């Protein structure tokens, strides 16, 4: 009896962790999770920020339009403000390091408003000695190199710190981003379908038939898997050039259609299908194509799902080879357009970049949410079994 109660004591609470240990675990996990999540949260916030808010609020901008006072350092009127110099940077750029002070020092000389991402200067009430590029103006769009002479005063600007979808509309209007998204969707889904069909057909033949050269093919595929893909870059480029497939989607789809790894995964999954099942289907008058389509493919459905997911992810993010093959801008995919077209504009288009990244990340993220189980299965298929 005492023995039994002892046994139950251990069995019932085999590794009862102490309360502090649990708290420490949660704390560690929470801190790490915060570190991991913050950049992505910031990405989403930044995609919805106005250019002027990009750096002034760490996360989502909020609140009503506010007036802010800018105190002028140094003796005014003697040292002009050079726009885009040390003091003010025009546009959405970082460097808006003008000192803000909340103590109003009237009179206000200028009203600086941010419109469309540019500072706009208007004379404020009680304006004195305001000149822009040595001209007195009622309204002036500041641009790089403008020199402001201002009287003894402080400056005021107002802006509404609210989220905006402006970055997205700019992407679609000025950068043809819809086209890039369509290109990416087309290339990725076409590539995934082609490689699904080819790999599963090939895997079926290797798993369930005996034919001449089967073992040679298997060994050849295993051997090529050892070779890093970058070895193939130069000769594939030469081949694609000779075949006249440069700057076309064929040049991306065909080389990407056949991966030894995917086919071996299918072979592995199909080896488990009992031969009797296929033989019974044959006796019932099933053709080999129907066996493949109506019996084998449904059986390996989970495997196909995982394969499609991994293939989609790989295609969606593929960069180096499409960058080599594609030359016309209207064929670009999202990653290429983002880094090579929008990223190289140089004009501090951070908001646009973040909005584009947000849109580019959305499809894989949505897929993951819908198909978490298959995703993890696909990830671990190659690794954990071995």
């Amino acid at each position, binding site marked *: 009896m005492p023995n039994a109660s002892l046994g139950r004591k251990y069995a019932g609470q085999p*590794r009862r962790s102490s309360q502090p240990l649990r708290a420490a675990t949660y704390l560690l996990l929470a801190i790490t999770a915060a570190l991991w999540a913050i950049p992505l949260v910031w990405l989403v916030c930044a995609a919805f920020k106005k250019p002027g808010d990009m750096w002034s609020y760490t996360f989502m901008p909020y609140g009503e339009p506010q007036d802010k006072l800018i105190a002028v350092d140094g003796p005014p009127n003697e040292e002009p403000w050079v726009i885009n110099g040390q003091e003010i940077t025009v546009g959405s750029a970082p460097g808006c390091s003008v000192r803000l002070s909340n103590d109003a020092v009237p009179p206000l000389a200028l009203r600086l408003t941010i419109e469309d991402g540019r500072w706009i200067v208007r004379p404020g009430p009680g304006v004195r000695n305001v000149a822009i590029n040595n001209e007195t103006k009622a309204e002036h769009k500041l641009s790089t190199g403008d020199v402001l002479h201002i009287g003894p005063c402080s400056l005021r600007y107002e802006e509404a710190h609210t989220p905006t979808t402006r970055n997205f509309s700019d992407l679609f209007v000025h950068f043809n981003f819809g086209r890039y998204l369509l290109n990416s969707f087309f290339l990725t889904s076409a590539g995934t379908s082609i490689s699904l069909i080819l790999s599963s057909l090939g895997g079926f033949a290797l798993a369930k038939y005996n034919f001449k050269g089967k073992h040679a093919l298997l060994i050849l595929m295993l051997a090529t898997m050892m070779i*890093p893909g970058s070895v193939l870059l130069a000769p594939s480029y030469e081949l694609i050039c000779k075949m006249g497939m440069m700057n076309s989607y064929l040049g991306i789809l065909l080389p990407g259609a056949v991966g030894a790894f995917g086919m071996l995964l299918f072979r592995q999954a199909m080896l488990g299908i009992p031969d009797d099942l296929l033989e019974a289907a044959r006796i019932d008058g099933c053709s080999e194509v129907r066996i493949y389509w109506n019996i084998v493919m449904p059986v390996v459905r989970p495997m196909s799902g995982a394969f499609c997911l991994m293939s989609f992810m790989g295609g969606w993010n593929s960069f180096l080879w499409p960058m080599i093959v594609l030359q016309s801008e209207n064929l670009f995919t999202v990653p290429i357009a983002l880094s090579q077209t929008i990223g190289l504009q140089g004009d501090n288009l951070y908001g646009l970049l973040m909005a584009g990244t947000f849109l580019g990340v959305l499809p894989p993220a949505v897929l993951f949410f819908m198909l978490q189980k298959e995703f993890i299965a696909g990830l671990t298929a190659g690794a954990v079994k*071995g």
Partner: protein
Amino acid sequence: MSGTVQGEQSARFSLWRQQQRLAPYIFVSPFLILFCTFGIYPIVKSFYLAFNTTNGPRSVVFTGLDNFRFLLHDPDFYTAVYNTATFAFFSVFLQLPLSLALALLLNARWLKGRNTFRFVFFSPYLVGQVFVGVLASVVFVPRFGLVPRFLHATLAANLDIKLLGNPALVMPALVGTALWMYVGLNCIYFLAALQAVDRELYEAAAVDGANAWQQFVHITAPAIKPVALVVVIMSTLGSFQLFELPFVMMNGPGPNKAGLTIVMYLYQRGFDIGNLGYASTIGWTLALMVLLISLAQVRISGAMRGNA
């Protein structure tokens, strides 16, 4: 009458046999044709190209071992190898313990919200290298970016720290970004292995009086060892093929070529300069290095298993 019917039947029967006999060849041929064209031929051709100097795809001149001779005295290549090896070393040896630790924490039976945590750690991997590179290039902006602000707040680092502009800081920035991106993936591998361990083993060990450390050494460690080897080999292979992350983050090799990797150098030589031959030489050297390193890792793990 009956003869023709029989003949028809046997003809149909032989057609039936025929489709059974031919099926595997028909099934495998589309794959085989494409595989030979875009998988086998380039490998052979690449080997040939490695002994040639080219100027674009059309002018190819046989130069024998010149490429390899040049490679041995090419300072840029050594820079690329040094950078890549440094990156591989640090990303493997930081990722392995961190992802294992996270997996062990996540494997606690009483933990609530395991899937949420797992998703958070894994999400940067979903973003993909190019998008992570774009994000990193913005997050690392001196003075204003998230990372300089964070480093300033926590480690009192200079707010103007140029993580992508200072040659000494490029590698830490790259390793950190890769760590952020891939820890969740490796954590999932470890977690899958940990969850495959029978819980009763721990209970039995606890009954026998084994403490947590002994349980880890004798139950957990052997169970995750194969996965650890896979993780090490895969992250080494991945690290040696690093291209997108630095290329997008710094829009090229970065200051003082501090972010030049082997594949980036291959790309520059082959596609900016147009010497596909030298690019192939670099590619085969990379393949050789990767092969030797993987073999060494398998050897070392085998030796460790022998000792245990």
